[in-house]
């Protein structure tokens, strides 16, 4: 229970900070957009038909881009605004950008609900267009605006779940990392419960505020319903409510500011990881690093592109999630110079028995299945070569295809299958090359069941990577030492039972 609360605390704060700040900024930005959409239209208060058309198209474009794509697409913009493309603060930028068109449309709708006659009546009093907006449109639309803001806030809570892509943390990310990827049902449920409580709270607050500003409306039936005393606010105290709300928002911003600043002052060594197993291994050696006086900040990524982009951009100092062939390909494609500095572990690729139960018993013309995606296909062929079954003319080059087989003494028939399908193919083939994650799903134990297994010499060992300028940082050296310590080895061997092997 204690562990659970500790785990939940920080992500909850992160979610609150992300949502509070993005609601506030997108509320202002979207508010301006919504007002412009209404007043600039033909027959509106300040008709500028060209601008109106432009804003409409822009809003529609903004609303059509899926959030996850938007988040990655605007990374350069994010970096120029907040100085980094990763972390909670960086996640706020796409949240704001994504929410503004949405808020704009909702505000537009709320303003259109304002009685047209009310606008005309204030015009006959001699109001300027700005006064019409400030004294008629906005105050008369308050209940509708509050409802819109409630919808936006709740939407942003769910958008923020995707913040994990850029290492933003938050509750959604926690649920994905531990619950979905890590099979920790308890954490997933706890996270969802916290989210439900949060959403309920936001909806209740929104409804209450909206009904308060509704001024009991025309419905006389509602008027006769006695409202509890604490729900009644005399007009005298309306300003108290207003300033109170503003105060809460300011506190939220302040808290976020402190959160960001404190991060900036400490300047820890920032290490990007995939949560499992990389993050868990790093967690284990944190005490060792603390003892050495090295403060490490773990930044979780849920994809394979961002950790390298962030490393190349200097947003993080090192990452641990990839193997060298992947890194090489990335460097080539992205013109980066990321280097590997230490092998840490391997999720071994294994040859699992099908109709044939031992390696030496493979008959002439036996059928062997291997994965069909380019990376794992090459890796599978290398495994077969290392087992002495075939020879490749490309040697140990990882860019290998079926065409590269130079000697196949047993005339093995090698067929490529979708990686996830391989365990199921075992009954129909003599043996199959299977990735550990799929082997585990099929209840195969790499250590016990595989007839041949990759070892730490494999080029597919996961490595700690960094950029050349940081390779000699003593803190990085300490990190390598800790990750290759006997503590780490013991943890890997015990925790993963062969699914992950130490590669040092």
């Amino acid at each position, binding site marked *: 229970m204690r562990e659970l609360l500790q785990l939940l605390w920080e992500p909850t704060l992160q979610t609150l900070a992300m949502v509070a700040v993005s609601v506030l900024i997108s509320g202002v930005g979207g508010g301006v957009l919504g007002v412009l959409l209404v007043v600039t239209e033909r027959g509106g208060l300040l008709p500028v038909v060209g601008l109106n058309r432009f804003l409409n198209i822009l809003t529609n474009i903004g609303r059509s881009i899926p959030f996850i794509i938007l988040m990655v697409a605007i990374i350069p913009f994010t970096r120029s605004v907040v100085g980094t493309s990763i972390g909670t603060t960086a996640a706020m930028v796409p949240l704001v950008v994504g929410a503004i068109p949405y808020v704009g449309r909702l505000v537009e709708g709320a303003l259109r609900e304002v009685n047209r*006659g*009310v606008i005309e*009546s*204030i015009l006959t*009093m001699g109001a*300027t267009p700005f006064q019409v907006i400030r*004294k*008629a449109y906005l105050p008369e639309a308050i209940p509708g605006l509050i409802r819109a803001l409630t919808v936006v806030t709740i939407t942003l809570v769910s958008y923020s779940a995707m913040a994990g892509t850029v290492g933003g943390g938050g509750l959604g990310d926690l649920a994905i990392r531990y619950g979905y990827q890590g099979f920790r049902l308890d954490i997933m449920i706890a996270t969802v419960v916290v989210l439900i409580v949060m959403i309920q709270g936001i909806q209740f607050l929104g409804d209450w505020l909206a009904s308060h500003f509704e001024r*009991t409306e025309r419905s006389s039936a509602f008027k006769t319903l006695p409202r509890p005393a604490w729900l009644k606010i*005399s007009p005298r105290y309306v300003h108290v409510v207003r300033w109170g709300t503003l105060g809460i928002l300011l506190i939220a911003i302040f808290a976020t500011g402190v959160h960001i600043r404190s991060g900036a002052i400490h300047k820890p060594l920032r290490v990007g990881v995939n949560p499992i197993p990389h993050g868990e291994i790093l967690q284990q050696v944190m005490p060792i690093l603390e003892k050495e006086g090295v403060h490490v900040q773990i930044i979780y990524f849920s994809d394979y592109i961002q950790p390298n982009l962030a490393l190349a951009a200097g947003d993080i100092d090192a990452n641990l999630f990839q193997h060298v062939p992947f890194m090489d390909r990335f460097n080539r494609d992205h013109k980066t110079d990321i280097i590997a500095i230490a092998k840490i572990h391997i999720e071994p690729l294994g040859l699992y028995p099908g109709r044939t139960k031992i390696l030496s018993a493979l008959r002439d013309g036996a059928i062997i299945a291997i994965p069909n995606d380019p990376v794992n296909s090459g890796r599978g062929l290398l495994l077969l070569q290392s087992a002495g079954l075939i020879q490749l003319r490309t040697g140990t080059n990882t860019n290998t295809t079926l065409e590269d087989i130079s000697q196949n003494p047993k005339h093995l028939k090698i067929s490529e299958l979708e990686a996830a399908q391989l365990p199921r193919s075992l009954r129909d083939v003599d043996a199959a090359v299977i990735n550990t994650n799929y082997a585990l799903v099929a209840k195969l134990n790499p250590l016990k069941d595989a007839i041949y297994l990759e070892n730490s010499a494999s080029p597919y060992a996961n490595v700690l990577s960094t950029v050349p300028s940081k390779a000699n940082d003593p803190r990085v050296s300490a990190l390598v030492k800790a990750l290759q310590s006997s503590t780490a080895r013991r943890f890997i061997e015990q925790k993963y039972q062969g699914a992950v092997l130490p590669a040092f």
Partner: protein
Amino acid sequence: MLEEISGSGPSELRAGEAQTPPAVLLENLTKRYRQDTTWSTVLLNVSLSVPQGTIQGVIGFSGAGKTTLLRCISRLELPDEGKVLIDGTDLARMNGTQLRSARQRLGVVFQQLHLFRSRTVAQNIALPLELAGARKKDIDERVLELLAWFGLEAKADSYPSQLSGGQQQRVAIARALATKPAVLLSDEPTSALDPETTASVLALLRRVRDELGVTILLITHELIAVRAICDRVAVLDQGVIVEEGSVEQVLLRPAHKTTQRLLGRNLGLEHLAEYLGGMTKNPASIFLEVQFVGESATRQVLSTLVRTFEITVNILRADIGELNRSAYGFLVVELGGTTETLEQSIGFLEAHGAIVTHIDPWSEAETEGSPA
């Protein structure tokens, strides 16, 4: 204190009546709307001069162009041709800042009032002053003054939704008067109100004119409002003013067919033929509409008539009320007798100040049935 509310008090009004320009002067106001490819003329050459301190009614059936007239005068619509002079300045020629400050000389009370639901009564009344950029102290002072004058002190902090229809009307009128306009434009002030509230709202409008000296232009389809408080009335029909004059003149001796129809409809004459049922026309009897105004309405003219002449009287319809603060009686009677006695009877009624009109209930019904 109350005289100060308006720019010009009634006393100085009367003194300079001949010299002062009209509070509202409409000149050849024309407005056309485009419907697909054709243009329809909603107002055509509407001219109207409303002297200061007058309550001028504009009456017409729905679709006559009343709403467009209101929107052109308040400059929510730009007239295609003509002038709209309010207190001497032409709103139709103005734009921007000029128009905004000129609008403070014209208070508008809309049919649906359009009070701000997010503002209390006091805040609603303060709105025009805020827009004009008045100082807070002055606003508070003026709002208190108006709340007191309109008897709304107790409701100052209430929201419009918490008020009765009559109270909302008062707030709307108070708000329209906040900037001390010379002219109050009131659109259907009595529609959707019960008779009692109607009477009190009309009395209030009259007080506004009497005590604050505000000229009122009242646009309505209800004869009761015109009869009760208007000095003059214009009849609008299909975008044209077909008849204009003092209320007594227009209502008692309507010259135009539309005016007669308006009056007839109000009095229910179109149903007379139905009431008379299958009765065949008796050549020996005549149908008269008899109107009494002022002193004669209070005298028992009809009973004297019966006692004096050899005639039979059948009262088909009767109504008493008020016409611009005078007592007003209205009768529809069937008189039976000889040609001579009938002529004498009409002479007797007219000698006693009654306005007598011959009517034919059967043709009245036909007129109603024919397309307007």
